[in-house]
């Protein structure tokens, strides 16, 4: 079975730069795992170590029960789709697809049958006799996926496969790839997928589970809902969600009930938050998603008072930028609940609803509001 395991895997580049700092990751058989993180966080490096295109400086990678550290890429049972397609420019689509099988000396009729099947699934039958330079970006990417699919690998690796496509095509390719994954699962030959992206929409919509990385460390591995509702630390909280979660330095005090002080204003923590809180009083980072704040009149109870410095009207909702002391907040409110007479410079109260409100340890960034 094609389970993929990384055990304290490290990568040190030739120039002495340590890109990956001992990461552990278990990907279950047939799981769609997304690696996501900002640019330079070593997503590609990790993927290329799994593929065998980079040496592994420390630790161990297993596929099924085989340790693959020292196997050549061709022997690992993987297939990879590259960001810029990497089709062989001098070969027709048909040969591009069958190149891997030819190298394995598969019989001709078997190769032909596989080519036919794969091109049917990806709707590239009409393109088989074209050269890569005669394909559009979307078509080329489908051929690239076909070239991976035809090998029926145990593990599929994708490195930002959609980032060269325009937004519309990206959306349709996204669905196509997840559909393909489901289809393989339904046909009883589930494929394990590692999918690298820096686009959180791709990550949230495609992944069974998501692995958020930063500077060569794994920050959290979880399914999309958990990742969104219970971010393990301030980094994940800020990375996932649109617009970004508001993060601000605050002071936690406990006189009877927990209280939060921000820019000299103190409010009692909402009940929802108090129940989850597992923190000692002191300096903390306060996190609230823009969708979980309401705009009140200035002076309302348990609301921070701030000044509107920008209003973005989006149609069905309004992004209200409010400054509280030095901290900039964004609140997203449905248009029908927003008083359209409000203007830049007006003073308003910003009240956290308590849902999706998090307290992070100031020093470590750990989420200390996840107690059951």
């Amino acid at each position, binding site marked *: 079975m094609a389970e993929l395991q990384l055990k304290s895997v490290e990568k040190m580049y*030739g120039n002495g730069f340590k890109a990956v700092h001992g990461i552990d990751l278990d990907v279950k058989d047939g799981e769609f795992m997304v690696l996501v993180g900002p640019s330079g966080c070593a997503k590609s490096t990790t993927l290329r170590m799994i*593929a*065998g*295109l980079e040496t592994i400086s420390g630790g161990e990678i297993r596929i099924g029960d085989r340790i693959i550290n020292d196997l*050549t*890429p*061709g*022997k690992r049972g*993987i*297939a*990879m789709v*590259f960001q*810029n397609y*990497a*089709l*062989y*420019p*001098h070969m027709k689509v048909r040969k591009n697809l069958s*190149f*891997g099988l030819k*190298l*394995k000396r598969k019989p001709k009729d078997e190769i032909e049958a596989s080519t036919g099947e794969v091109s049917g699934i990806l709707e590239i039958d009409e393109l088989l006799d074209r050269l890569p330079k005669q394909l559009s970006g979307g078509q080329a990417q489908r051929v690239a996926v076909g*070239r991976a699919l035809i*090998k029926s690998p145990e593990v599929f690796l994708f490195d930002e496969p959609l980032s060269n496509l325009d937004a519309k095509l990206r959306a349709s390719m996204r669905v196509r790839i997840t559909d393909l994954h489901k289809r393989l699962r339904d046909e009883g030959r589930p494929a394990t997928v590692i999918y690298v992206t820096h686009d959180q929409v791709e990550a949230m919509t495609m992944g069974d589970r998501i692995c958020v990385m930063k500077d060569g460390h794994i920050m959290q591995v979880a399914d999309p809902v958990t990742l969104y509702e219970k971010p393990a630390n301030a980094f994940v909280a800020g990375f996932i969600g649109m617009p970004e979660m508001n993060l601000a330095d605050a002071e936690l005090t406990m006189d009877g009930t927990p209280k939060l002080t921000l820019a000299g204003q103190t409010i009692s923590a909402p009940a929802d938050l108090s129940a989850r809180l597992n923190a000692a009083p002191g300096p903390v980072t306060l996190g609230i998603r823009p969708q979980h704040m309401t705009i009140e009149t200035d002076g309302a109870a348990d609301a921070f008072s701030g000044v509107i410095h920008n209003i973005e009207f989006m149609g069905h909702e309004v992004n209200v930028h409010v400054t509280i002391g030095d901290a900039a907040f964004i609140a997203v409110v449905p248009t029908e609940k927003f008083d359209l007479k409000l203007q830049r410079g007006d003073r308003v109260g910003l009240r956290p609803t308590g849902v999706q409100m998090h307290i992070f340890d100031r020093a470590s960034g750990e989420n200390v509001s996840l107690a059951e």
Partner: protein
Amino acid sequence: MTAMPQISADTLANMEKQRRRARISSTFRYSLLIIVGLIMVYPLVWMFGASFKTNAEIFSSPSFWPKEPTVQGYIDGWKTSTPYTFAKFFMNSMMIIIPKMIGTAISCTLVAYGFARFDFPFKKIIFSTVIATLLLPNVVTRIPQYLLFRDIGWLDSFLPLWVPSALAGDAFFVFMLIQFLRAIPRDMEEAARVDGANTLQTLIYIVVPMLTPALISVCLFQFMWTMNDFLGPLIYLSSVENYPISLALKLSIDTTEAFAWNQILAMSCLALAPSLIVFFMAQKYFIEGISTGGVKG
């Protein structure tokens, strides 16, 4: 209201004047270029014309047009003053050029691939050494090379002409291929490795096809340079039966007391033919090869 047509008439006249000036200037420019071009190509034209003249006429008139055209120069020149016809010398030239070209293409590809795609100990030093030999004047190595080949016993054979090139001795070609390879992204090769190709298969099935334009330029350069090479064969080949064209042309000057210039010119014209034919056949790839390697590298 009345001013409007007035202005546009003026502008029209102006435009007409500008257009005329542009036409005059381009006529002038092209005439100049054509004249300079003709001056440069004239010796070649003259040679071609003179090859149809009699020996006496060559020195009597500077015009390139033969008064009494004759192919006697070609007939006599082809026979040569040696026991062999010129065909033998053409054959010898090909015997030198073709293995040398193939050897160069293979060896330089291997070396360039190694330098462009792999890391190995002392790579920097070794690469600098290769490039340094580019800067070394050719003559410096002539004598040591000669002594070496004499001790091995390869004198008066084609081996000293083949072997250095077949061992990637032409640093220029290695350099050219490396530059070209650097401009090709590695993704395709990585994809091939993931597809299960080993290093050699990657080279043959993926890299070489992508390198083709550059390889054609390499072969062309090697063809032309070897065709024109005089010193190499002169040093290593001593028996007439091994002479390539470049030496054979000189031969007719050496052995006849009264130089038969018309024969020499006739054979020179023939000697030009292979290079020209090959060049025009491969021109498209040739230009592509040089420019891609140069610009993107």
